[in-house]
Structure formats: structure tokens, C-alpha cells
């Protein structure tokens, strides 16, 4: 453990060299980048008419822990959408306003729900189908069937490999959690019986939860998909062959090494576009876009946004090694947008997508960015979702700011169809990009160190995405981007194709900075306390031929962070104090020839987690009245227009 700083620094130095592993147009990567201990060979057939998938798979699994496995545990994610009694659906209802199931769930037709049934299971040739049982390790919910356990008569020892044959059938739902179908559009993810991750302390195989995503080991995926002929297919990996059958179906075989999941999509409506990412120091990437016809004019926007992610994430963290990426523009109402899978992601746009607004760019950069934070650095999203979603939200905002600045607020009217761009409101990376407003509303809902699947479902996203982005950007403003960039690239280099935990990241931070920043993570990670510093009072009155100035600054929140306090005087002198931020309040006094005009805590807004920045300053020349007048007059026109709409009925 003590050698870690050396390892980290070495990784930083050699990072650019190792990052350029061979891109492959065949899905093969040599030498292997990951342990490849859970590889899947899958054959599946989609019947669009009945929305049924019939599949079989051969899993080659190697126990890479130090202990024998006495059972096998599989995710059967689609059983989360079997009925309203699953843990997923119960948690989803927690976030809804009504007493029953969330949203449209109550009105779903019977054929719009899903299920996955394992019909046969052999381990090492022995038929263990009859031994399968459902377990609920997270909440003991007897109605949850998303984790299947198979006890083993013969434990699988450390380092031993085993072959598992499984046959199953599944019904494709109307979309849940970005998976399902609408019309002829199919997006199929989390769709096959999938092993959990065996760790030294046992299986890490959580039930499917409403607010969390996934976790799996790396492997090789060789997947043959049979769909109607003429229907384009997009999938993880590279298509190696297509065989057309007499029954008007075609089998597409996709192959990819060193990934930990496999998703695919098909629809007869897709337009296909291709482009290439090229960069002086990063490996080229072939980009394939499956686009909805009504978005035909937005192909370049999707490609440019993907290039933005590949370029900046590549320059900042490390190279994208796969050599190809598939961008899926999902169908309207499919609910499949904005999701990441290895070498494939779903974007999300609208029919009316005005320029100067980051739709579709924002979501495209974000999901493409997940290839790095999730795809390559494969954290446990059940327990530490912030490690990919938060890191990626921060990175997205930073990348978007490089290319799409300024971009503006757009609101949508008339059922959400008609956008209107507010050219007065340029969105800032630090606040809107990192989603400060969302964090502020939910700041105390959970400590970030709580396992993600135990976050309150309705507010978990704010802690996962927004809080992380804000504390990372705070680190950037506090330590400087060069330092944070070294931290992130060192962490990426050390943990790519592995499963890091929070302490692994914190150790990299300490190693790169040469400081123990545990106190910072105590504030932002291990606590739900909020930051709120402010100026309580500013007085500056003549006392003889001097002005006596007093500034009282206060810590209103429970969380602690060192902040600057700046006092500006009428003669333009500016005094900057450094306050450790520990005490509840602090007094600064000055006897100076000039009167003070303003005092401000954290004038450079380093601490982006401060939930009330308005109270951070105090001036003796306030413009609050003038600003309030201006805005109330604006509002009055809105009110008058509202009244006129009402009186149209008189």
C-alpha cells in the first residue's frame, strides 16, 4: 500500500504511452486490457410481433478472487418489470406523487411489462436448472426476482474457470429504464442472464434498484442476433458477419473484447451515418450513428459532440482504446435516451433543436464520456454511482464549455414541443453545467458515502451527479486544473479496466497532491452537511480622519471549507483575508483612510457547493432596490399578459 504514490506517479508519467492501446476494427484488442474473466457467447432471436427474445448463452467464467465460489449469482434485470411488487417498482413509486405506481405504470397493458425466464442452466455440463432460486440480498423482498442463485455441489476454486450454459426467454417491455420497445423501435439492454461480480467478501450481485445502474466483470462478448432482414442493428462491438435467412430474418454477429456489458438496438426506421474521429495524439475512432429520420439534419451535431468527448476526455484522462463507437438516436417516447453501454450509447434530441442550445450536444458528450467513466474505469454503480456519473457530469460540463460556450437557456412550451431560447441567459459551466440548483434542493437528502442503492430514489440523482460535479469543480478551482487533471489521469490510468472503490480514488488524490485531503472528503463525501458562508454585517463609519470598518463573516452551514474574505474600499484598495472557515463567525476590523464599500466571502467562488451565494456579499452601495424594480416591472408584464389571457374568456 505504501508503494501506491510511486505507482501513481509512474502511471502519470507513462500514461500517454499506455493509453494508446491498439484500436481495433474487429473488436479484438491485443494484448488483453482487462482480466476477461466473464465472457459471453450469446445467440438470440427477436420476434418483433410478440416482442419476445429467445436466447442461449455460454458463459466462460473464471474465479479471480482468492476464495472458492460455493454458488453462482445472476442478474435477471428484466424481472424488475414483471409487476409492481419488485424492489425496482416499489422504489420507483417512492418518487411519484400519487399513492400508486409511478407515472404511467398504473396504465400499462399486460403486454407492456417484462419478464425473463431461465429455462435451462448447466454448470460444467451438469444440469442445475432445478436448483435455481431467487434471492433478495438488499431488502429481503420475497417478490423480487432480479437475482437468481444457483448453489454449487462442487465449489469453484480460486483461479478455476467454468463454463455455464443458459437458455432463456424474455418479453420485451414498453420501455423501462431505457430498455424496451415502442412501435418497431427496440432498445435491448440488461437483457441476458448476467453473472454478478464475485469479490473476496462474496458475490456483489445487487437487486435491480430504481435509482442505480449496473456492475459486471470484463470479458469477451460474441453475440449473434437474429432480427428481421433489412432492420439495421446497432450493438456493442463490431459486426463481424451477417447471414441472411430464408425466413426473412438476418443474423448479425457482433464481437468485442474487454467490455463488461452488451446492448443492442434495431429498428427499420434508422438512418445510418458514419464519420471518423482523428487527433494528432489519440487513436482514431470510427463513429457510426443510427439516426431517427426526423433528426436527419442533426447528424453533424451528434458527431461533433462525440468528437468533443473523445478529444477532451482523451487528452485529459486517457485514450479511448476500442477504435469504434456507435451513437444511437432513440425514437420519440422510447425512453431509451441518455444511456451508456460499452462502445455504444444512446443520445437524445428533439425534433426542434435550436442552435446555441446544447440539445443534443450535452447528452451526447455525457454519454460518450461514459465510455471513460463507466466503460473503461468500471466502478460499481450499485454502490458508488457517483464515481462514474459524478465524474462524468463534471467532465461533460468541462468539455461542453470548451466547444459550446456560450450556450443558452431554452424553455419548452405547448406540451414541451416548442423551444424558446433566452439569449439573455448564458448557462455557466460552474453552476448550470454542474447542476447546482438540483443539488441545492436535495443537498441534505443523503450522505454521498451511503451506498447508492440506499439513496432516497427521488433525490439520489442530485447526490450522485450534481454534488460530485460540484465538489470536483471546487477542487479544480481550489487546487488548479493542472493538479486535478493529473489526479484524474492518474486515477484513470491506474484503474482502467478494473473496479475501483472510493478509497482508491481518495488515495490517488492524496498521492498526486502530496497532501492528506481526507478532511475535504469528510465534508463532501462522508457527510450530508451543506456549505453556506456569508457576510452577516458590514459597517464602515468615519472615526476622526479614518474610517473604522468591521466585517462579520459567518458560517451558516455545518460543512467547513477555507475561504477568502475580500474587503473593497472606496479608494479601490482591496484586502483579502484567508479564513479557515472553522468558527461559526469571525470579525475583521480595519482602520483605514478610506471607507469600505463591499465585503465578500469566497469572492472567486471557489466553493461551488455553497448553497446560498447571494448572502456571500454585502455592500454599502446596494443595488438591490434597483434590481428588484427592474425585475418586478418585467414580471408585471408577464402578469398583465396572464390577466389578459384570462379576460379573453369574459
Amino acid at each position, binding site marked *: 500500500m505504501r508503494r501506491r504514490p510511486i505507482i501513481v506517479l509512474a502511471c502519470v508519467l507513462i500514461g500517454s504511452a499506455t493509453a494508446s492501446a491498439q484500436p481495433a476494427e474487429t473488436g479484438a484488442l491485443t494484448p488483453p486490457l482487462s482480466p476477461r474473466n466473464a465472457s459471453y457467447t450469446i445467440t438470440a432471436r427477436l420476434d418483433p410481433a410478440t416482442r419476445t427474445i429467445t436466447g442461449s448463452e455460454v458463459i466462460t467464467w473464471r474465479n479471480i478472487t482468492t476464495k472458492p465460489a460455493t454458488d453462482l449469482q445472476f442478474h435477471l434485470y428484466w424481472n424488475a418489470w414483471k409487476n409492481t411488487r419488485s424492489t425496482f417498482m416499489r422504489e420507483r413509486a417512492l418518487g411519484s406523487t400519487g399513492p400508486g405506481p409511478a407515472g404511467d405504470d398504473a396504465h400499462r397493458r399486460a403486454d407492456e411489462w417484462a419478464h425473463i425466464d431461465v429455462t435451462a442452466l448447466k454448470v460444467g455440463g451438469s444440469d442445475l436448472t432445478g436448483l435455481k432460486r431467487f434471492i433478495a440480498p438488499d431488502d429481503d423482498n420475497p417478490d423480487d426476482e432480479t437475482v437468481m442463485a444457483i448453489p454449487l455441489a462442487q465449489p469453484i476454486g480460486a483461479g478455476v474457470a467454468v463454463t455455464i450454459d443458459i437458455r432463456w426467454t424474455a418479453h420485451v417491455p414498453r420501455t423501462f429504464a431505457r430498455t424496451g420497445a415502442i412501435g*418497431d423501435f427496440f432498445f435491448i439492454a440488461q437483457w441476458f442472464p448476467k453473472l454478478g461480480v464475485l469479490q473476496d467478501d462474496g458475490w456483489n450481485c445487487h437487486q435491480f434498484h430504481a435509482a442505480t445502474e449496473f456492475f459486471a466483470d470484463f470479458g469477451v462478448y460474441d453475440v449473434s442476433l437474429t432480427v428481421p432482414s433489412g432492420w439495421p442493428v446497432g450493438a456493442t462491438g463490431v459486426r463481424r458477419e451477417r447471414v441472411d435467412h430464408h425466413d426473412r430474418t438476418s443474423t448479425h454477429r457482433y464481437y468485442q473484447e474487454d467490455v463488461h456489458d452488451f446492448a443492442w438496438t434495431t429498428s427499420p426506421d434508422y438512418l445510418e451515418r458514419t464519420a471518423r474521429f482523428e487527433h494528432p495524439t489519440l487513436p482514431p475512432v470510427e463513429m457510426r450513428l443510427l439516426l431517427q429520420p426526423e433528426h436527419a439534419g442533426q447528424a453533424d451535431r451528434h458527431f461533433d459532440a462525440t468528437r468533443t468527448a473523445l478529444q477532451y476526455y482523451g487528452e485529459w484522462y486517457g485514450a479511448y482504446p476500442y477504435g469504434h463507437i456507435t451513437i444511437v438516436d432513440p425514437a420519440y417516447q422510447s425512453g431509451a435516451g441518455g444511456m451508456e453501454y460499452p462502445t455504444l450509447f444512446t443520445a437524445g434530441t428533439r425534433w426542434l433543436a435550436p442552435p446555441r442550445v446544447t440539445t443534443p450536444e450535452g447528452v451526447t458528450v455525457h454519454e460518450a464520456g461514459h465510455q471513460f467513466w463507466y466503460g473503461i474505469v468500471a466502478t460499481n454503480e450499485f454502490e458508488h454511482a457517483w464515481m462514474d456519473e459524478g465524474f462524468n457530469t463534471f467532465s461533460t460540463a468541462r468539455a461542453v464549455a470548451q466547444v459550446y460556450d456560450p450556450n443558452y437557456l431554452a424553455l419548452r412550451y405547448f406540451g414541451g414541443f416548442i423551444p424558446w431560447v*433566452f439569449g439573455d441567459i448564458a448557462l455557466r459551466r460552474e453552476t448550470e453545467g454542474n447542476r447546482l440548483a438540483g443539488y441545492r434542493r436535495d443537498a441534505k437528502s443523503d450522505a454521498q458515502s451511503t451506498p447508492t442503492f440506499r439513496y432516497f430514489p427521488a433525490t439520489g440523482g442530485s447526490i450522485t451527479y450534481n454534488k460530485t460535479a460540484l465538489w470536483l469543480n471546487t477542487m479544480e478551482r481550489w487546487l488548479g486544473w493542472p493538479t486535478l487533471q493529473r489526479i484524474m489521469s492518474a486515477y484513470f490510468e491506474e484503474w482502467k479496466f478494473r473496479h475501483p472503490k472510493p478509497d482508491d480514488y481518495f488515495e490517488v488524490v492524496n498521492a498526486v497532491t502530496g497532501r492528506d485531503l481526507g478532511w475535504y472528503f469528510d465534508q463532501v463525501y462522508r457527510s450530508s452537511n451543506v456549505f453556506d458562508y456569508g457576510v452577516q454585517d458590514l459597517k464602515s463609519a468615519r472615526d476622526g480622519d479614518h474610517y473604522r470598518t468591521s466585517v462579520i463573516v459567518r458560517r451558516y452551514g455545518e460543512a467547513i471549507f477555507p475561504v477568502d474574505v475580500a474587503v473593497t474600499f472606496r479608494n479601490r484598495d482591496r484586502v483579502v483575508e484567508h479564513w479557515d472557515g472553522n468558527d461559526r463567525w469571525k470579525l475583521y476590523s480595519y482602520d483605514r483612510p478610506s471607507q469600505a464599500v463591499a465585503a465578500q466571502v469566497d469572492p472567486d467562488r471557489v466553493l461551488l457547493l455553497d448553497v446560498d451565494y447571494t448572502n456571500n456579499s454585502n455592500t454599502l452601495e446596494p443595488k438591490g432596490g434597483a434590481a*428588484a424594480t427592474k425585475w418586478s*416591472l418585467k414580471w408585471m408584464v*408577464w*402578469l398583465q399578459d396572464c390577466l*389578459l389571457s384570462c379576460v379573453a374568456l369574459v
Partner: protein
Amino acid sequence: MSAWPEGMRRVNRAPAILLGVWALTLLVSLPLAAVLRGMLAQHLGRSLAADTAASGVNYDWMQEFSDQAAGLGVTFKPTIIGFGAVLDNLSAFMDNVHRPAVIVGAASLYILLWIFVAGGIIDRYARDRATHAYGFFASSGVFFFRFLRLAVVQWIVYAFLFGSMHPWLFDRLYPRMIHDTSVERTAFLARVALYLVFGLLVAAATMIFDYAKVRAVVEDRRSMIGAVTGAVGFIQRNYAAAVSLFLANFALFVIVVGLYALIAPGAGRTGASMWIGFVVGQLYVIGRLWVKLVFWASETALFQNRLAHAGYVARPEPTWPDSPAADAI
């Protein structure tokens, strides 16, 4: 269609009415704006955040304010800026978005005031000559309670349209229509179709109630049910003219809104630009009010044109008796 320019002429010849209803609008909106101003000023306090809020948009501050706002304050959102305000209200109207109670209260008061002045306004346009303040308010007073009774009927109809028909169209039918739609344009067209259906129903109701008021004033009707049936009869007999006139007036509305879309001021600064922006906003409000009055005036003109004597008003022009004290002198 001669009623259309005739209506505009009658409105233009009575600028006091236009100014009066604008004053009514100010009367209701100014106090609430003052309340909101107090909220904003209190939240800004002596913060430097006010500097950027004064010189442009401080979106961070707006969001902080929104997060702690209650009552009136929750309506202070970016959508109030420029033409966004109009889109917000039109969209809320068509999508039946509920407003906070304080806004509903203000709107109710505003509607009540309009019900009070409606008789005076239509009487003025029907006579097409100055009725002066006493004539105006006498007519307002005479028709106030009649129009209140009519308002009960209107309330029932609009409650049905917005309380039952709209939810049926947009919360039940629309989701069914687009349930399997995977193309956004198709869904949008479906929604536009439902907007048209709902808009036509609202327009039909509005047109009937407009002519009910016109007939009540011109014919001095006391029965509002009778006025409504009379209005329906009139529209049936003069379907093409009534609908054409309504569409022409609606086109005026579109023109006024379109013009405002072109010139609507953005956030602006404090000082002169703030007041210029406010004046532009008020010109838009006056434009909308003018359109509203043209609706009534042109419909009055159309109805009178169909009578044997154009310009006919059954009720004698009110005159004030001299006071006994004056006689004694």
C-alpha cells in the same frame, strides 16, 4: 366584413375606454408587482448579486430566489423575460396549467372588474358617441348584475371546457393517440389537432357569450339565458359573417403578438433601458387590450348592422336628474 373596420373605428374613437381598461390592468397588477418587488429586494438585500441582477441576468440568483420562494415568488422565473412571458401564458392557457392561488385571485378580481365595465364599454360602442363618465358607469351599473348572472353561465361552460373537456382531450385522448407514436412530429401534429379542437370550442363559447353581452346591451335584455339563446340564434343566422369577423379579430391578436415577438425587450439594465422596456411592454398590453375591445366593438357593429336600424340601442341614454337642491335655488 364592414363591421371589422367599423369596430376598430369605434374603439379608436373612444380612447378613454382603452386607457380605462389599461388603468384597470395596472390597478390589479401594480400592487402585486410591488409585493414581488419587496420579496426580490429583501432577498437581494445588500448583496453584490444585485449588481449583476441590475445590469443583466443573474441566473444563479434567480434560481436561489426560486428555491426559497413561496406564493407570488414562485412565478418569478426566466420565462418572464421578453416574449417568453407571452409564450408562457399562451402555453399555460392551451395546456391548462394551474397558476398559484394568488395569481388566480388577482385574475378573479380582474375578471370581476371587466364584468363591471363590460356593460359600459359595449354601450359606448353601441351608441358610437360619447356617453361620458356618468353614462358609462350608469350602463356599467345597469348591466353588472345581469353580466354577473351571465358569468355564472360562462363559469359553468368554461369549467366544463377546462375542467372536463381539456383533461379528457389532453390527459386521456392525447396519450392514447400517441401511445405507440415513435415520431415526435406526429405527436406534435396530434397535439396541434387537439389544440384546434379545444381552441374552437373555447372560441365558440367566447363568441356566443360576446354576442350575448352585445344583445343584452343593445336590446336591453334582462334574461341572460335569453341573451345566450339570442346570441346562438344570431350566430346561426349569420354564421359566415360572425365566424369571419371572429377570425379577422383573431388575426389581429396574432399580429399584435407577432409584433411583440419581434420587439420584446430582453432583460436589459436598470435606468433608462428598464423604463423603455417597460413602456414597450405596456404598449403590447395596450395592443392586446385594443384587440379585446375591437372584438366587442366589431361584434356590436355586426349585430347592429343586421338590425333594421344600424346604431340602435333600446335603452335610453341615461341622464342624471337635477338635484332637488338645485331646483330650490
